[in-house]
């Protein structure tokens, strides 16, 4: 095997509409090595492993296994090549037993389609021993903890004889103790000759476990270095780069009168002790790496998730939010990230979609007054400059930008005091993005408070007045957006900030330890 790497990805290119997700990426993984893969949101990590796992096909480039070019046409082809990907959402069936899950799809048989239960149990035990999980192979997966499920998933990968194991954010939902054990297991697997590609948003874990680290930025490989030849600060600098922040979208300065106050909001497993204030006319940006709990915070304020603890005040009055209906009545609007799944009814027309959230205020004994509705909608369509053939057009035929404007129109016609956005411009072209920024700013100028959760750092830097950084379910840093230092935000996002800033709680736990 000398000289020929076990897995070689050469010049991989993948283009999505509007973006070059992977730009001639070279990636190598040897057997017996742990290769850490890091990068900002949208740097191309998940696209790369989707190409490797056969979920996506590259536009250009080739994949070589032991020097031989291969075409990874499907996940099952990847498995037969010895490449196994463990996704963040696990691939287990709760009501089957551990042994059944491990061998699902490649069961030991005795011929005639009869299961060999003894062999199944015995070898399940062997694989469980390898991953260090002490459970009965006959136990149902439902009864296991998340960590244990993850280990079952690893055992499943080993049972198909995986020689390259890709783990996407395996530690995201584990506690410090569990992470430590998992990292040790990853090292053990590498010592047994398995190649592991390890992706994590926790930099200290990557440094604790990897032999080599590859940094991706904007779809390109910035560097592949031995662990000892790179330190976390350098890595953060490499991930961030020196991109230009565009002109800020400014308006009237916020009044300083508190509008929405959130105190000690806690939802175990998602976020802890979250407190912040949004003033009248202010746009607050909330940033964090994927899966740090920031997406659940506006949902909880909107009453879509029920937090275990904490209070929400609007203009000093405490709100009791048990459902989105309560929040809407109190004057809170939420524009979710999954426009198509949650924000719109695609098969209804524009008029119906806009009217949906505020039907109550325009109905008389259950009948809608169409005349008042028509003028209201004409107003909004003009104000937001939605490009339409007619208000009776089906929403599915509109562009992404126009769809997003319809969602905004839907909420604006209720004249909300507080607007919560999650990824307001995801999948929208540049021109429409600018217009949406201006609309959000105008809404703030009229006195609304706005919260934007975004994975696009540029967006937050350009549009917001204040930035909150979330790491590991907690707000770890707060700063004004104007003149904010991107590197400082990145450092806080990756949990590298040791000292908490005033008014925020302790930063994430430090796992593993950097050696």
């Amino acid at each position, binding site marked *: 095997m000398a000289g020929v790497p076990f897995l070689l990805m050469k010049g991989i290119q993948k283009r999505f509409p509007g973006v070059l997700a992977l730009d001639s990426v070279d990636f190598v993984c040897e057997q017996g090595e742990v290769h850490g893969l890091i990068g900002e949101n949208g740097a191309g990590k998940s696209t790369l492993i989707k190409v490797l796992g056969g979920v996506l096909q590259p536009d250009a480039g080739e994949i070589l296994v032991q020097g031989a070019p291969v075409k990874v046409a499907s*996940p*099952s082809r990847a*498995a037969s090549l010895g490449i196994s990907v463990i996704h963040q959402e*696990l*691939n*287990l*069936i*709760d*009501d*089957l037993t551990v042994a*059944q899950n491990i061998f*699902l*799809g*490649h*069961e030991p*048989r005795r011929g005639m*389609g*009869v*299961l060999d*239960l003894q062999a199944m149990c015995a070898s399940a035990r062997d694989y469980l021993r390898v991953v*260090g*999980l*002490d*459970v*009965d192979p*006959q*136990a*149902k997966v*439902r*009864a*296991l*903890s*998340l*960590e*244990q*499920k993850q280990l079952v998933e690893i055992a*499943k990968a080993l049972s198909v004889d995986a020689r390259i194991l890709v783990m996407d954010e395996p530690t995201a*939902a*584990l*506690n410090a103790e*569990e992470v430590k*054990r998992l990292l040790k297991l990853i090292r053990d697997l590498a010592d047994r000759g398995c190649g592991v590609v390890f992706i994590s948003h926790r930099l200290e874990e990557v440094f604790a476990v990897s032999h080599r680290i590859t940094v991706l930025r904007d779809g390109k490989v910035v560097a592949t270095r031995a662990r000892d030849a790179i330190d976390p600060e350098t890595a953060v600098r490499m991930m961030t780069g020196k991109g230009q922040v565009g002109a800020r979208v400014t308006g009237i300065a916020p009044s300083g009168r508190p509008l929405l106050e959130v105190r000690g909001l806690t*939802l*175990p*497993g*998602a976020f802890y002790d979250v407190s912040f204030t949004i003033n009248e006319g202010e746009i607050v940006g909330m940033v964090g790496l994927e899966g740090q709990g920031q*997406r*659940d915070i506006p*949902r909880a304020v909107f009453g879509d*998730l029920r937090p275990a603890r904490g209070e929400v005040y609007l203009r000093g009055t405490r709100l009791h939010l048990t459902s989105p209906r309560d929040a809407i009545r109190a004057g809170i609007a939420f524009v979710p990230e999954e426009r198509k799944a949650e924000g719109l009814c695609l098969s209804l027309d524009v008029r119906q979609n806009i009217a949906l959230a505020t039907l109550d205020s325009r109905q008389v004994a259950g009948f809608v007054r169409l005349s008042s509705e028509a003028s209201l909608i004409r107003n909004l369509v003009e104000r937001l400059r939605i490009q339409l053939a007619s208000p009776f057009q089906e929403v599915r035929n509109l562009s992404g930008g126009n769809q997003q404007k319809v969602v905004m129109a839907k909420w604006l016609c209720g004249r909300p005091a507080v607007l919560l956005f999650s990824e307001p411009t995801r999948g929208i072209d540049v021109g429409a993005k600018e217009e949406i920024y201006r609309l959000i700013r105008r809404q703030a100028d009229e006195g609304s408070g706005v919260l934007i959760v975004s994975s696009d750092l540029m967006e937050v830097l350009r549009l917001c007045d204040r930035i909150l950084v979330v790491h590991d379910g907690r707000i770890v840093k707060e700063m004004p957006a104007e003149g904010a230092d991107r590197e400082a935000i990145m450092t806080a996002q990756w949990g590298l900030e040791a000292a908490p800033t005033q008014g925020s709680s302790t930063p994430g736990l430090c796992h593993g330890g950097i050696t």
Partner: protein
Amino acid sequence: MTTRGLTTSAGRTEGRAAPVARFHWRRDPSLPIYIITLVVVVVASAYSPTFRRPYNLSNVAVQTVALGLASLGQTFAVLAGDVDLCVGGVISLTTVISATLMGDDVLTILCVVALCLVLGAAMGAINGLLASRLRMDAMVITFATNSVLMGVALHLMPAPGGMVPYSYMRLVDVTVLQIPTPVVLLVAFTVLSNYVLNRTVLGLHIRAVGGDRAAAFRSGINVTTTKIWAHIVACMFGAMAGLFLAARMGSGDALAGTPFSLDSMTAVIAGGTNFASGTGDVAGTLTAAFLITVLGNIFNHLGVSTYFQYVFKGVLLVIAVAGGAMRRKMQVRARR
């Protein structure tokens, strides 16, 4: 999102050694139906001398056979995450074909039996294929195919009639050790189904597809093939139920199968099989089918109208579904 938070918090409190979740009779989802059936039979036997007469009991057992067979098949469909409402149509058409085509010699009888089974298998394959390929709800697809079969059966035989040969009718009355053969066969098929569902690759795949279709697919299971097999089994059991009914009635009836689509589903759900989780077993199904028949028998003795029995069966289905939903809710709460 909530579920993620939920599992995480559970993960944080538990250690690495798992609670051993071996099979335990108290966790058996079929337990309620066993208890209810036992109570009903004991009470009815205590109060009614007619009910406890051996002849009546044997009669009830034979009456269970048609619903029992249909429900065994339905269990496969429900475990695979679907439901096959087409079994009623298959039963009707089978009785009509039997009463029309069977001659008085062994060869034609065997040929017609084979024809009916093949027809059932073909309908199952069509149902499974449509349900998984069109990505439509199996309930809607099989509701439609059921209507097609019912229409064909009514066209062939607008009014109940026809004849099956006497020799074929006699088969139902043969006994083994004083137990009627159909009952023996029903029990044998139950044991066989239990084996298939728990000891074979097909059984495991059916449960996996019913439990989480996407995860099963990503584990390399052919979801389409698995669903097709589940529906084939369901409709072939339907055909067997129809063949039995034809022998029992001695004639064909294009409406004979009508109640079975819903009744078989009731038996499966009341028997503890859960929609969309891949859990449940045929023993519970068979017991529930028996209970439905016993209650019908008791109602007849009490002189309750047949129409009221429809009301009762509907209520039973609602209770069974609600019970399943509550059980799941309690499971979720217990995990917290």
